[in-house]
């Protein structure tokens, strides 16, 4: 099983006129078999981190700095051909919107068979039994396996995606908000399915979500992202019960709000990605900010074993 280590990843997107600094030094490690949750507001770079790992970036996105080490291989330096051997086989991705991530003209079983055939160099016909088996495992009975995506519900499509992702027993599974657009009961089923499958093949999981409660159910480690950076990472218990970064605290507070009262929220909004401001990027929204926060950038530092925070005011 593989170890994924991302070091100081910086990513810019240039749309021709302006440059967006999307990732500003993302650093985290996923040890073999670990389940890491990436949490953060919309636009903080969670999905871009996932697409960088898969190297599915749009053409105008440039990785400025940093490395993505899968064991001893730097994924950024690989050629497209070498990357194809890794995609689907060693690292795989479950998309946000499963219904649109399936080709409308291929049936469920064709999707799964396609992945399996590609990486095991068998004919598509021979991989069909295996595909039916995988679909049955993810909860799609044989009589539904020949249906086309538009004939399946959103939850069913997500199950097909999971079967596709697990076809080659990948070492790392990235789930990019796999439950958006599904209703709550189906969400739980899909999450349980992902957990069960991950345990069965023993792969590590990167679970991306904006729902810190959901993440704390699924994962054993949580990394909180803000404006293209990891601001806090640690074990589930450390993050949930003793959050150190003011952003994590505010995030948890808004999550734990009791009904009836006015929901607490974080004032202000995510900083403009076009400018690289000096100092801590959370400073404008932070109640504890002081002059140091505005002038120098806090680095991630360990305050207790396995618990890292990027903030001057804590620890």
């Amino acid at each position, binding site marked *: 099983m593989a170890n994924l280590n991302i070091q100081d990843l910086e990513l810019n997107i240039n749309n021709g006129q302006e440059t967006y600094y999307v990732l500003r030094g993302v650093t985290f490690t996923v040890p073999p078999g670990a389940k890491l949750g990436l949490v953060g507001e919309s636009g903080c770079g969670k999905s871009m981190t996932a697409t960088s790992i898969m190297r599915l970036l749009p053409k105008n996105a440039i990785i400025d700095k940093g490395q993505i080490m899968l064991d001893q291989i730097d994924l950024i330096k690989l050629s497209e051909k070498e990357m194809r051997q890794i995609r689907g086989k060693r690292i795989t991705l479950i*998309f946000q919107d499963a219904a649109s991530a399936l080709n409308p003209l291929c049936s469920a079983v064709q999707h799964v068979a396609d992945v399996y055939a590609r990486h095991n160099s068998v004919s598509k016909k021979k991989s069909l039994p295996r595909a039916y088996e995988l679909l049955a495992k993810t909860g799609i009975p044989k009589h539904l396996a020949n249906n086309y995506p538009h004939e399946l519900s959103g939850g069913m499509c997500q199950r097909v995606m999971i079967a596709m992702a697990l076809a080659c027993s990948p070492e790392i599974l990235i789930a990019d908000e796999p439950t958006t657009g599904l209703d709550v009961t189906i969400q739980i089923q899909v999450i349980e399915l992902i957990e069960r499958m991950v345990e069965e093949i023993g792969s590590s999981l990167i679970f991306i979500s904006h729902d810190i409660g959901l993440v704390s159910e699924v994962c054993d480690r949580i990394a909180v992202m803000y404006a293209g950076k990891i601001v806090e990472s640690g074990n589930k218990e450390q993050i949930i019960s003793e959050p150190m970064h003011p952003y994590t605290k505010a995030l948890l507070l808004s999550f734990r709000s009791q009904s009836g009262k006015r929901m607490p929220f974080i004032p202000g909004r995510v900083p403009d990605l076009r400018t690289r401001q000096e100092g801590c990027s959370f400073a404008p929204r932070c109640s504890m900010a002081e002059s140091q926060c505005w002038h120098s950038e806090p680095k991630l530092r360990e305050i207790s074993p396995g618990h890292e925070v990027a903030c001057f005011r804590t620890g």
Partner: protein
Amino acid sequence: MKTITVSTEIYRSRYKGWFRQLCFLNGTWNVVSTWIVLGLFIALALVADILPLQNPTAVNASEMLQPPSSSHWFGTDPWGMDVFSRTICAIRVDFLLAVSSVILGILAGVPLGAIAGFFGGFLDDLLTRFAEVIQSFPQMLFGMAVLALLGNNIINLIFICAFYNIPTYARLVRSVVSPLREADFVQAAKVSGNTSLMIVFRHLIPNALVPVFSQFPLSCAWAIQIIAGLSFIGLGIRAPTPEWGSMINLGANYIVFGKWWPSVFPGLAIVISVWMLSNLGNQLKSIFFAER
């Protein structure tokens, strides 16, 4: 008390499936008549050999320019050939040439357009500009030039029509594929480890085939006009072979003397077939747009 009546109009048709939808979108009368006429044309083309027709290429000097009668339903032309049997036999020639040239154009144009749309950038610009250059050049003039240069035969005629269909289909497919380039399922196919070319041929081209199918009859109609047009001016297919364009040409000089039948009947055949093929194309298009 106020009563609110809600009328839900249910479309009733005795047809099933896609044909029913075709009728619903275009009107039953329109669809059924188009399909009957086209079906009749194609059936006639298929069975022309076993029908008790007179020999379409038999020249008979004693029966020149006979008006329509019971022995020659559409009369005879200046060479004494039976216009009715020639009109029927020409269906096969014209349809076969048109369909084969359009299919050739599709075979070349669709992959080109898909590749241009998927990869974008310089390749896309190059192919699009090239297509525009071809399309801006008058087709008849180009056809005349090529036939004069490379020799006047059927193969060259087919290639001219095919060549003009390449940019049409390339641009059509490009316009469908280009927005799909960033689609989730293309990304998902990449995640599964597919190469770009596999994605183009297995995932993108099948998704672009619906507009190609609806364009197909329109292109056939256009190809029939071009083939008949070139044959009319003496290029392409020559006289004893039954072909509508050359038949019109044969009778054209005699219209002023009141001998209208050698030209009018093949002309009508062109009008009807082009009209019906365009109708069919528009009907298929309506299905394509209804899906959107």
